[in-house]
């Protein structure tokens, strides 16, 4: 089902500071059933920008897939400028998503930071459909960077932390987690590596994390995007984030 396809932009709008939501439509969208999977997006014309950009699936509704991206450099700037109707070439769906299928009627915690938030939304919807109770903790730099708060509210409790205290709890997502002592059975997390490290340390229940790394191929062929595997459970020594991940059990990998 790995496909290379020109998707068509249905909507592309700013939803927070430097942050855009793009809705795309095309044949391959029907196969985007796994939250945590990603699209590998071609940016620019010609070959000046040779590498694709990985972006997580934030939601799927009917024939539309949403991605939420923060403008960082050339590729995301270029994306932000593309008009409705424009074609965007993607490889999709890539990687292995969050293992949500067996999670039913539980209380789960979703912990997201910045542009790690998007994949958790699609996950939250899937988990909700399976009768789970959902609590979400989202961290942003400041109030103007916040997005998707209401969307998460609709699915359960949503706590917000901001680095500067301009909204919600001042501090990190882990501060919120500590203060609230949620009685949850499982957690799912996505965000910057320092956040993931702190999350893993602070949690004693089973959890799944989604990792980021600079990528070449996005499909497992180039060995660009590896991370260290936990040697206690596996001697293979590494995982490819694009192919074996981006989602891993918190115990499976060692963050550096």
């Amino acid at each position: 089902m790995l496909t290379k396809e020109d998707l068509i932009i249905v909507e592309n709008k700013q939803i927070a500071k430097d942050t855009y939501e793009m809705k795309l439509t095309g044949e391959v969208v029907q196969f985007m059933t796994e939250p945590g999977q990603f699209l590998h997006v071609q940016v620019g014309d010609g070959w000046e920008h040779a590498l694709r950009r990985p972006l997580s699936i934030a939601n799927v509704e009917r024939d539309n897939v949403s991605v939420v991206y923060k403008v960082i450099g050339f590729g995301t700037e270029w994306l932000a400028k593309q008009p409705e109707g424009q074609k965007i070439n993607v490889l999709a769906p890539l990687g292995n998503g969050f293992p949500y299928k067996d999670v039913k009627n539980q209380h789960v915690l979703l912990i997201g930071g910045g542009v790690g938030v998007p994949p958790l939304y699609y996950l939250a919807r899937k988990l909700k459909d399976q009768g789970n109770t959902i609590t979400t903790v989202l961290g942003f730099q400041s109030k103007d960077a916040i997005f998707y708060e209401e969307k998460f509210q609709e699915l359960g409790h949503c706590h917000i932390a901001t680095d500067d205290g301009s909204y919600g709890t001042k501090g990190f997502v882990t501060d919120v987690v500590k203060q609230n002592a949620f009685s949850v059975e499982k957690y799912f997390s996505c965000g910057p590596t320092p956040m993931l490290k702190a999350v893993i340390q602070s949690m004693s229940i089973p959890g799944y994390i989604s990792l980021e790394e600079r990528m070449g191929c996005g499909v497992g062929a180039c060995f660009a995007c590896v991370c260290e595997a936990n040697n206690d459970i596996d001697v293979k020594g590494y995982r490819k984030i694009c192919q074996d991940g981006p989602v891993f059990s918190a115990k499976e990998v060692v963050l550096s």
Partner: protein
Amino acid sequence: MNLSVHLPGLSLQNPILPASGCFGFGREYSQFYDLNKLGAITIKAATGETRFGNTTPRVAETSSGMLNAIGLQNPGVEKIISDEIPFLEQYSTPILANVAGSTEEEYEYVAKTLSDSGKVSALELNISCPNVKEGGIQFGTDPTLAASLTKKVKDISDVPVYVKLSPNTSDIKEMAIAVEAAGADGLSMINTLVGMKIDIGTGEPILSNHTGGLSGPAIKPIAIRMIYEVSQVVNIPIIGMGGVTCKEDVLEFLLAGASAVAVGTANFRNPLICPELIDALPELLDQYAYSSIEECIGRSWKNARESAPFSRS
């Protein structure tokens, strides 16, 4: 149109093959198309033992190119033979196995193990990897070392040996002549040029290895020049590579003097690039009035031999 090319150990139904390190061991891209389409498959470098490679980040983007510092991560030659190559045996496509090492002994061991396995059609001696501290590039910039290594590997290998040359040298002709004299059956060129990108935010190199190998369209003019020069001073065939992204590039490499053309970085952008190039070649050759691959090879200097600035003598 007959696209076939016959090289030592490699009977190619067409001149297109993926370049080493850009195609894993074939599994991933087999999800996109039937690997039987390819002229051959070059697999990721094998070393004697498992290697974990460099820490990440391992890639960075540059203008019309990319840097990589994978550092020869691979499961080791034995696991490659037991776990990876069997997958490729379901295809009839010849396998060109990339051989790396830190010492002459390691190269010899890897080469012998691959050759003895009976599962690969030819070896590609990687004396040009810029991303490892030992081996790799030293062998690739010193003609005497390169020749000695080539000879040793030839002695223990039953399959033909292609030597993959480094462009990080002031005289690639000298290297080519040295390894030909030492018995190389063919050449692969070019490997990547050593480059760096600095993150102006952190002030530090993006790659954790600091430097990495530059590939992609940016290096194509250098590849074309080197193939043009080398093909005029050796009598062994060249597998050309470096920045191929379209059918016109394939023809340019053939005209420069390559007998087959490998595609690296472009696979990442377009996983279907190899079959697309293969399908496009007949019409392109036709358009330029070539009736075979053979006819194109080295045409840029065969036409104008007298005025060619390089010659063996």
